[in-house]
């Protein structure tokens, strides 16, 4: 479905300095900064796969998505999506894809979502039968019956997001790009959206690419993840392997009952339990890092041996895992951002 080889996208960014003198100077001698938003990425995605894109802001996820949807021209490299070259922006290609951005709405604000559906029906030239079938199917699946006839501005964020999804799937795209589809939603809604995406993927065998800040989104939906930072593909594979590779430990927080003796970091009973590391001791709260394999054993010991009031076991946050990943693999790439000055004849500052 998607075939990417040595894909790069470099921007030239006009460096603006403050002050009148600098502004005048930049008229004659503009300084540009090369930003390598995507720097030599290769991967393949098969039909029907669900793949998650991970990485911090500005890592190149969005740029990669934009390259795949044809919004940007690649600087170099090969790129085929569903047999098409995206940046040629042919209508056939566009009929096969759909883009949903959680932070940007395409619904008509003052009107019910059903009106946007009608506009999309005209844009994608959907014939009446399949339009009706697809619309009713989506409304059913997303439980939008009570929602689609209310003006969009009156909807909650979650309802709106569901309508966005429905509107962008009316033409049954084979390839769906979801950019932060659950951003800002409450836990309930996130779950609903996730279940829908899963169901849609299974029913229509659509290929789905997803970026999200929420680890749970990605881990619930995607078997395969790609971690991108500074334009490089750091990891491409199973999510379980990512976690065990970069974050083999879970975090165990113990809250001791009031009145118990204050704990000392070194001489707690855990010092003899093996695969356990103390992160923090603060009064009656102790945080431990425990490897996945040892966890159940440790929890049993805690429950039977220690006077605790409460305890929690947490997966490391996505930020932690990614942070781990970067510390491991990116410290050597500091010199990727370099400055060069160009004369004014170098033209425009896109």
């Amino acid at each position, binding site marked *: 479905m998607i075939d990417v080889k040595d894909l790069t996208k470099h*921007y030239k960014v006009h460096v603006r300095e403050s002050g009148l003198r600098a502004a005048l100077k930049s008229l004659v001698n503009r300084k540009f900064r090369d930003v390598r*938003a995507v720097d030599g990425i290769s991967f393949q995605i098969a039909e029907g796969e669900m793949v998650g894109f991970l990485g911090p802001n500005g890592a190149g996820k*969005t*740029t990669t998505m*934009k390259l795949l*949807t*044809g*919004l*940007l*021209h690649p600087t170099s490299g090969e790129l085929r999506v569903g047999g098409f070259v995206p940046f040629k*922006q042919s*209508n*056939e290609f*566009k*009929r096969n*894809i*759909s*883009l949903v*951005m959680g932070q*940007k*709405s*395409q619904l*008509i604000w*003052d*009107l019910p979502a059903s*009106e946007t559906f*009608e*506009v999309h*029906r*005209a*844009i*994608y*030239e959907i014939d009446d039968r399949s339009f009706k079938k697809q619309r009713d199917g989506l409304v059913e699946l997303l439980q939008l019956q009570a929602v689609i006839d209310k*003006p969009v501005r009156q909807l909650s964020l979650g309802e709106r997001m569901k309508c966005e999804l429905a509107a962008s799937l009316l033409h049954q795209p084979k390839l769906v790009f979801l950019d932060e589809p659950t951003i800002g939603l409450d836990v309930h809604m996130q779950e609903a959206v996730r279940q829908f995406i899963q169901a849609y993927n299974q029913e229509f065998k659509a290929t789905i690419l997803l970026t999200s800040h929420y680890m749970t989104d990605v881990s619930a939906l995607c078997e395969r993840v790609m971690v991108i930072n500074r334009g490089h593909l750091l990891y491409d594979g199973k999510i379980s392997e990512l976690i065990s590779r970069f974050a083999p430990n879970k975090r165990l927080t113990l809250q001791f009952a009031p009145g118990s003796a204050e704990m000392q970091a070194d001489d707690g009973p855990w010092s003899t339990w093996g695969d356990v590391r103390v992160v923090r001791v603060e009064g009656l709260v102790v945080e431990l890092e425990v490897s996945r394999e040892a966890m159940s054993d440790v929890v049993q010991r805690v429950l039977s041996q220690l006077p605790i009031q409460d305890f929690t076991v947490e997966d490391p946050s996505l930020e932690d895992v990614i942070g781990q990943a970067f510390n491991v693999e990116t410290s050597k790439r500091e010199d990727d951002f370099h400055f060069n000055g160009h004369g004014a004849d170098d033209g*425009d500052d*896109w």
Partner: protein
Amino acid sequence: MWRAVKKYARLFREFIRTCIVEEMEYRAHFVSNVFMSMLLLALSVLTVQLYFYRAPSIGNWTFDQVMILLGVFQALQGCIDFYLQPNMNRLVQHIRKGTLDYILTKPVDSMFFCSFRHLVLWRLVDVAGGFALVGYGLWHGSIPVTVWQWFLFVLLFLTAVAILYALWMAMMMFSFWAVKVDNLSYLFQSLFETARVPMSVYRGIVLVVLMPMACLTTFPAAALVNKLHSQDVLIMLGLAVGMLVSARWLWNYALRHYTSASS
């Protein structure tokens, strides 16, 4: 080809439909909007009457002829407010917020979508008012018009609409370069005000500068009142074709270099 025409006609109809539904939300304003339009038209007629209070003609145009010209101006202004002005502001928004990406990933011509998605339908009242004024001028001045003149009038009016469209699109393109286009459209509107009066009012360097604006109203009106030279038609047609082609080229150029707001 035929299929594309049908598709875009259908899409245009869909735009009109959504705009009607949208405007129904604000139907209370309709009456006062129309009232305002009428008042504005009446006042511009009064202004012309004031000029003619002191003079039998202005730059060889009689009162009735100037009425016709004012009607053309009003109708063109109505067209600007009907589809150019509303879409221009939307494009700026699309670029700032990054929602242009949605339009670009749809199987539809983005220039078409960005030009006609939003229509302010009640502005067609202005267009109608303008043509009514043209009719009044013809009737009041008992000006005879041949079929050929009517043809030229319609042709030149459509040409003027096309030129305005191209000019406006060229301005819109600046929003890709992060210039505040709202101000450009204000400047354009102000300059267009100079087309309220016959071109013969301007002289020298001023005429050269204002020519493109002034001919938009002067030439169509001149067709009806028999003041048109054949080279005027050619100039207008050439201008329209050239500008439409370059607007299209500029649009594609801007898109090629478009990088979305969030990157």
